[in-house]
């Protein structure tokens, strides 16, 4: 959320206790709630006619007509169009999350053809950079991460396949209804039922089914509550809670997590509804499936003995260590009377009280010497003899060589499949899985019944258990569904304007913000369906409007009437998001590596940053340095330790769906952008780039830095100001050494810290 304050009351003081009074988990309240006719979000989108407005310029594009009518109603004057330079920067950050390159700037500014702007949008939409940018919005919405969080913070070896799947889906302009269906039910809609056909190639349809199924990975990468692993029932209940919460926020735009414990206080979603949604997923399970040809799978198992070799070598080392430890303990024992040694040698459970006391003497000495295995005494090196030391070194080398030969990974995807056991779902009293109440069958929230949607009916299905997810996907993607299309067009709108038509994108409920332009929202939703659920068409539509192309200039009268710019009398000025900021720095400095996809890149951390991490083994820094400057969407998302630069700039915590990020402005951001090792490095690279590619005079460097960083030439005043950096005396750094690059580095750092760099007009 950008500014919570004008979206929802920051602190609402209510008459009674805000949270607390238990609500009886009964359906009696539901009828009353359903009777409320007022909830617009459960009515199907209406077919809305484009309004007629006075200003012909605002009539040509349907979106503009909707916007202009509201502007007129509110007594607002639209801002003039943005200039081309501003527009190019806006469009470029919007679709690619990157500033325009000098070449792109020249090309667009010199293109006098009437459709230059449309061509630009098309070019940007056609580039793979687009998917890398827009996937991230969706990844926020589905609380993407590479690990499970909490104490164990388990690693999801195949989460990255889902991330790449999302990027590819956006780049391919996969119809959104298909995108939804794949994530919810690909395995049920497109089962893995196609045979291999006698060649080394996987049949394309089979591969397509497999690719689609990676969509279901979405439901396998939520937070994993460590405690729950002890109890199957709890683990399943926690998993299903995450599934339903994510489903509700991401696809329905409803925050329904509270209905786990009691009926929703504000929306007509009951605890029963919540558990019925759970039941849709209850007969599914998380499963690893190979994503390679059966022949490769055979190859993997054929080479498996090489892994056994590694295990054998490891156990040789362990045996050696155990022998050395035993010898050392024997030496300690030798210093004690026979009686004590005998006590120590008696198995613990057979010792008398007397023996237990005696044995303690040796036990303490052993742990003192760091030899107690149970106490994790591995810190002290064992007292090897020279020959043992050599033997160990040789074994270590053999392990290394065996590891090189062995094949440790059979490429797999982690997806949804059918559970072996048919689990009943009970309404859990107060959301406590230990108190199962009435059993429920799969079903959709009943408030939607009668809104032109069928209730979930599995009677026609022969499969047992029924393919409930398939029905859910069909239900969600029905053109009559009141939420799916509205929710996604609203997200797209928010991506372009910084604020949705519904400003609470994950809450279309009664406590959410009502739409600022309800007719426009419906028009966009129905248009999306008409256009075959194409998201790229939506971008094109929105971006070719005058509304989108307005300047962000301030105007006092408008500001007085609509300070929050709810009715879009101007474009919103927006700060770069964490990833966009990092990517922009990298591309401006000239160090961005555009390689796509694959395992997450684990960026280096400074020593100070590492200090906050519980288990450094869980941060295996990527050793290939060229990988460190890849796009931010590819960086490792570890739930229990998010990349510090990102958290500083409001990266969501990935514990739950995030529909809209905070935009905070705090001093640690300034410190990060001025002093961090990353920024210092990039300023240095940027400085070198200016020196190398942008002439040999301060004037030309200054111009180059403005062009690369800000997409424009500096004004005379700005250039003159920057010249102070090159005025001789400043050639001396504080260390007293002459450094010709220093003024350039300072110049680079200044540009990368400017408000103009961080904010897009």
């Amino acid at each position, binding site marked *: 959320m950008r500014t919570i*304050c004008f979206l929802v009351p920051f602190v609402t003081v209510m008459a009674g206790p805000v949270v607390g009074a238990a609500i009886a988990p009964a359906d009696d309240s539901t009828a009353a709630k359903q009777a409320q006719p007022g909830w617009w979000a459960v009515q199907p989108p209406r077919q809305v006619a484009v309004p007629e407005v006075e200003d012909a310029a605002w009539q040509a594009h349907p979106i503009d007509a909707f916007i202009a009518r509201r502007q007129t109603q509110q007594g607002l004057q639209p801002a003039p169009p943005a200039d081309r330079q501003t527009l190019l920067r806006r469009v470029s950050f919007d679709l690619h999350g990157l500033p325009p390159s000098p070449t792109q700037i020249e090309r667009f500014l010199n293109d006098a053809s009437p459709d230059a702007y449309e061509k630009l949008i098309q070019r940007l939409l056609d580039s793979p950079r687009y998917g890398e940018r827009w996937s991230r919005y969706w990844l926020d919405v589905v609380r993407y991460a590479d690990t499970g969080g909490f104490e164990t913070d388990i690693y999801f070896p195949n989460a990255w396949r889902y991330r790449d799947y999302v990027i590819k889906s956006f780049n391919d302009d996969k119809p959104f209804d298909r995108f939804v269906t794949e994530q919810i039910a690909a395995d049920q809609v497109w089962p893995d039922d196609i045979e291999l056909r006698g060649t080394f190639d996987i049949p394309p349809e089979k591969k397509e089914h497999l690719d689609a199924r990676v969509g279901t990975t979405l439901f396998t990468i939520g937070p994993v*509550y460590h405690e729950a692993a002890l109890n199957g029932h709890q683990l399943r209940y926690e998993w299903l809670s995450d599934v339903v919460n994510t489903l509700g926020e991401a696809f329905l735009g409803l925050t329904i997590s509270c209905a786990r414990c009691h009926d929703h206080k504000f929306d007509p979603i009951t605890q029963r509804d919540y558990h019925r949604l759970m039941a849709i997923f209850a007969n599914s399970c998380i499963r690893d499936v190979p994503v390679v040809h059966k022949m490769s799978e055979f190859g993997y198992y054929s080479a498996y003995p090489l892994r056994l070799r590694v295990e054998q070598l490891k156990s040789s080392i362990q045996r050696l260590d155990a022998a050395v430890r035993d010898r050392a303990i024997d030496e300690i024992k030798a210093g004690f009377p026979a009686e004590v040694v005998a006590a120590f040698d008696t198995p613990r459970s057979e010792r008398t009280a007397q023996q237990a006391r005696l044995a303690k003497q040796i036990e303490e000495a052993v742990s003192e010497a760091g030899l107690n295995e149970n106490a994790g005494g591995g810190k002290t090196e064992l007292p090897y003899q020279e020959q043992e030391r050599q033997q160990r070194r040789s074994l270590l080398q053999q392990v290394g060589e065996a590891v090189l030969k062995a094949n440790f990974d059979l490429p797999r995807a982690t997806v949804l499949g059918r559970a072996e056991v048919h689990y009943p779902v009970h309404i859990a009293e107060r959301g406590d899985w230990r108190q199962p109440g009435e059993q429920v069958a799969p079903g959709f929230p009943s408030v939607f019944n009668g809104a032109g949607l069928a209730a979930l009916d599995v009677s026609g299905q022969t499969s047992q258990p029924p393919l409930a997810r398939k029905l859910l996907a069909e239900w969600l993607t029905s053109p009559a569904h009141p939420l799916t299309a509205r929710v996604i067009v609203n997200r797209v709108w928010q991506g372009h304007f910084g604020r949705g038509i519904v400003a609470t994108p994950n809450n279309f409920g009664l406590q959410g913000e009502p739409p600022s332009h309800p007719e426009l929202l419906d028009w966009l939703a129905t248009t999306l369906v008409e256009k075959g659920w194409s998201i790229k068409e939506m971008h094109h539509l929105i971006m070719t409007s005058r509304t989108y192309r307005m300047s962000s200039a301030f105007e006092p009268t408008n500001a007085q009437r609509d300070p929050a710019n709810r009715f879009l009398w101007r474009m919103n000025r927006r700060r770069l998001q964490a990833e966009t900021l990092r990517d922009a720095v990298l591309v401006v400095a000239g160090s961005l590596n555009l390689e796509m996809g694959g395992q997450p890149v684990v960026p280096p951390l400074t020593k*100070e940053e590492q200090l906050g991490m519980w288990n450094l083994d869980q941060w295996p820094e990527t050793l290939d340095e060229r990988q460190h400057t890849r796009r931010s969407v590819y960086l490792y998302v570890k*739930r229990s330790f998010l990349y510090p630069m990102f958290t500083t700039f409001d990266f969501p915590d990935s514990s739950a769906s995030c529909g809209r990020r905070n935009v905070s402005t705090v*001093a640690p951001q300034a410190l990060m952008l*001025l002093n961090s090792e990353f920024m210092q490095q990039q300023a240095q690279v940027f400085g070198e780039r200016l020196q190398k590619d942008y002439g040999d005079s301060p004037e030309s460097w200054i111009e180059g830095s403005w062009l690369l960083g800000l997409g424009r030439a500096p004004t005379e005043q700005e250039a003159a100001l920057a010249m102070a950096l090159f005025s001789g005396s400043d050639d001396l750094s504080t260390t007293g050494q002459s450094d010709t690059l220093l003024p350039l580095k*300072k110049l680079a750092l200044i540009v990368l810290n400017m408000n103009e760099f961080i904010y897009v007009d």
Partner: protein
Amino acid sequence: MGFHDSWKNAEDAAPCRLVHTRRQGTAKTARQIVMEKLSAPYQFCCKETLVTSRREFLQKAGLGFGSLAASFLMSRDGAATQPSTQTPTQPETASPFAAGMTHVPATATNVIFLFMHGGPSHIDTFDPKPLLTELDGQPVPPSFGAEDFQFTRVAKVPLMASRQKFQPRGESGIEISDLFPQTAQHADKLAVIRSCYHDGFTHVTGQNWLNTGWPRVGRPSVGSWTVYGLGTENENLPAFVVLLDGPIAAGAPVYGPGFLPGMYQGTVLRSDGPPILNVNPPTQLQGEDQRQIMKMLARYNRLHLEQRQEDAELAARIASYELAFRMQASVPELVDLSRETTATEHLYGLDQETSREFGTQCLMARRMVERGVRFVQVYSGGRKGGGGAGWDGHVELVKNHRTMAAQVDQPIAGLLSDLEQRGLLDSTLVIWGGDFGRTPFADGLKESSQGRDHNPYGFTVWMAGGGIRGGKVIGATDEIGFRATEDKIHVHDLHATILGLLGIDHERLTYFTQGREFRLTDIGGHDHLTQRLLAS
């Protein structure tokens, strides 16, 4: 000071201006402080701006660390635009801080939370169990109930008596073990709550519970809530500071803002290297070089702002750079202990190797409270360089706890003495606790463990200062220290107590998100101890 001349001021700012209003007797209400802070930047950049954008400015110009008691102002403005949420007869109730900014009279204004990472054993420290000594080595009597633990099946492990010696301390006679001989001398200042409980039996859930009132991640920490409610007294330092001696199991979320805006997060002050992440400019760009960068940047940003007008966010960002610059001066001053006397160093145990590190942290905590930092959290037992488990005595508990206690006892006692002699103890609430307590029976993971497993069903937290009348014991665990039985105090009650002492009604400090109002104490907190702790 407006933004126009703020550069001059920024340069003059070092060393930082200490804010001692409260202690110099010129007590300002939080409302006054807030209004003063508001007036300056507000006049410059939003002269004629409407309520909404003033609010927007407040939130964004949080000047870094939630210095604005934003909740108060937000709700006021919220009330202005949302008249339906209040009753017309009580317009002032729209603000949770209507009566002089706090709901109830505050006895504490600052908090130091000493967190024993790993889970200290209550039955070896502050909760003596004579019956446990008698039953040493025997199975757990069935009357105490069965409960399976992470590594331990209750039916299969013997009870384990404490090897520590307890004795009555002070006039109040509170029994404290020989692990805390120095702290025990302050027994009459302590309110020892022996009946705390929650249900998280791993470190992460225990730490989440104690810090955020919820076992999972995603909720704001008690420090964040406090700052959200009360703001800060020193704009040049973060309002909520966390002192770590190494990484903690639950990581940053336990001092994170959760769903509150980022400005409410705890800032980690490190004992090694730069005290705050990135607070030191790189060697190559210090002094004049950095000053030049900051000056030029400010010029460019002002030129940029002039062309755009009335953008609170851009103005806030300029302000955040000024604060960053001032912090670079005020943080080194804060961590510079060279002016502390030898006597003070001795008091905190800085002259002993074992207690030097935690003593330094405690001394730092006192310096921060002096400078108006609202909430300080000090951890003992974080993991360093991949080893050590803090207070997590699964194996060789005696050795573990003796080592850990030796590190913290003198510093804690020193902190209490020092706060008292400086007149700060009355307004500073000191809290001691950890993830959970430990089991009265042996840990079942390894045969030779000689340790105790985690026990969230009964454990001890003590509080001192902040107006508390000490020398009292509240609640009790059963006869072997397994479960809280008398006067059970849930973590929500502890949090409600902390907020209560700070003058905040835990039910009225709320934040709307995810479709509903959230509060630190969720649906609990009704058994809070605020009045009982204050009573003599």
